[in-house]
């Protein structure tokens, strides 16, 4: 019987978080929210955008992720690969709003942009909306 999960949250720009004493993890999987305890069956799933709840020594911490997937292997390593991940309390509402505005501004002149720039701006807006939601929620609960 395992007591802990070894968690690592990894993004293309680096490792956001690692801890080997995780008690449980709650994540928004594509088929609905899942909770993983140390002796869960190996699982691989796509994740929806949203928040991951990580419980360490009874304390909960939250991470906001954007586009990713989760892999829990036989050895008890839980890896979350995400395009973007950060601690929820580090979300800065003003910065997010700014990013959203910049992206919206860019999209308003759509004809000037290349296909990749449009894609980039649209992704930025979707991410901003999601982050704003979480940031608002955090503000109320804390």
């Amino acid at each position, binding site marked *: 019987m395992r007591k802990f999960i070894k968690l690592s949250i990894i993004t*293309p*720009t680096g490792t956001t978080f690692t801890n080997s004493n995780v008690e449980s993890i709650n994540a928004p999987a594509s088929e609905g929210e899942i909770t993983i305890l140390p002796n869960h*069956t190996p*699982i691989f799933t*796509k994740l929806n955008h949203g928040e991951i709840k990580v419980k360490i020594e009874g304390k909960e911490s939250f991470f906001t992720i954007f586009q990713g997937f989760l892999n829990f292997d*036989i050895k008890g390593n839980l890896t979350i690969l995400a395009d973007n991940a950060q601690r929820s309390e580090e979300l800065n509402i003003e910065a997010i709003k700014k990013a959203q505005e910049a992206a919206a501004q860019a999209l308003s002149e759509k004809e000037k942009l290349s296909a990749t720039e449009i894609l980039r701006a649209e992704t930025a807006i979707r991410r901003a909306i999601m982050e704003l939601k979480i940031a608002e929620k955090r503000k109320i609960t804390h």
Partner: protein
Amino acid sequence: MAGTRKILSRIRSAKNISQITKAMEMVSASKMKKAQEAALNGQPYSIHLRQIISSLLALNKSVNHPLINEVVKFELKTNLCICVTTNKGLCGGLNTNHFRMINRWLKENPDTDFITIGKKGRMFLAAIGVNIIADFSDLPENIYFEQTLTISRYIQELFRGKQYQKIYLSFNHFISTLAQKPKLVQILPIDPHSLKDEDLGLLKELDEEQEQKFQTKEYIIEPNAKTIIHWLLPYFVELQLYHFLLENKASEHSARMVAMKNASQNAQDVMKQLRLVYNKMRQQQITMELADIITATSSIQ
């Protein structure tokens, strides 16, 4: 004094050069730090993605995907190679070594078209007269993932359109600041075995035992293996290309920094030698003048 003046001007020009190369070294050093960071930070992600894909493919041998299809149904002989080089020179033997490798490879695979990323590679390939089907040299200095999508989607389209048998990518593999090695990797079709290529230094830890357990034990895959694989493989190709580009950037700046450091060192050495020659000449002249004066005075007496 014509001789000494000449040497003085040579010392001056050597000094100027050393100042320029020193400045370039500094610029490269700061760029190198950023580029290395970007390349190294991305590595854990890449490793895990490879691990996941290789185990998913091992688990689901029946899943067929156009990007892993190893069976070539059409009589295709043409390969495509994406040649990633630098836009600028002055980076030591980096590009030269790369081109040597390509030349060697071309001898064995003469039927190859090229896509170039980087002006140096474009110039070289145009000079040896191979077929270049596209050029993406105008990528900015700091590469974003989204910017590389144009390229990776384009090659996937070419591959799915059955235009090429295999698609390779050649770039400079970053080992350390002092060592870079040109490398040619196959990116399409995705070869499940090559995912464990130890030579790339990415997958050393994935042991056989774990692999076996993967295959025997029940593994929940949501929504289902087919969807996941269909979604992951194109993404994998895109990410791989992005990482190779980052790695090439890290190699470029490292090589340039080292080359500039050597150049500064050489300029310093040249200055030292010239200074020595200059001093010798100056002393010789003084001695001669002294001898002149002495002979003159002694002849008067």
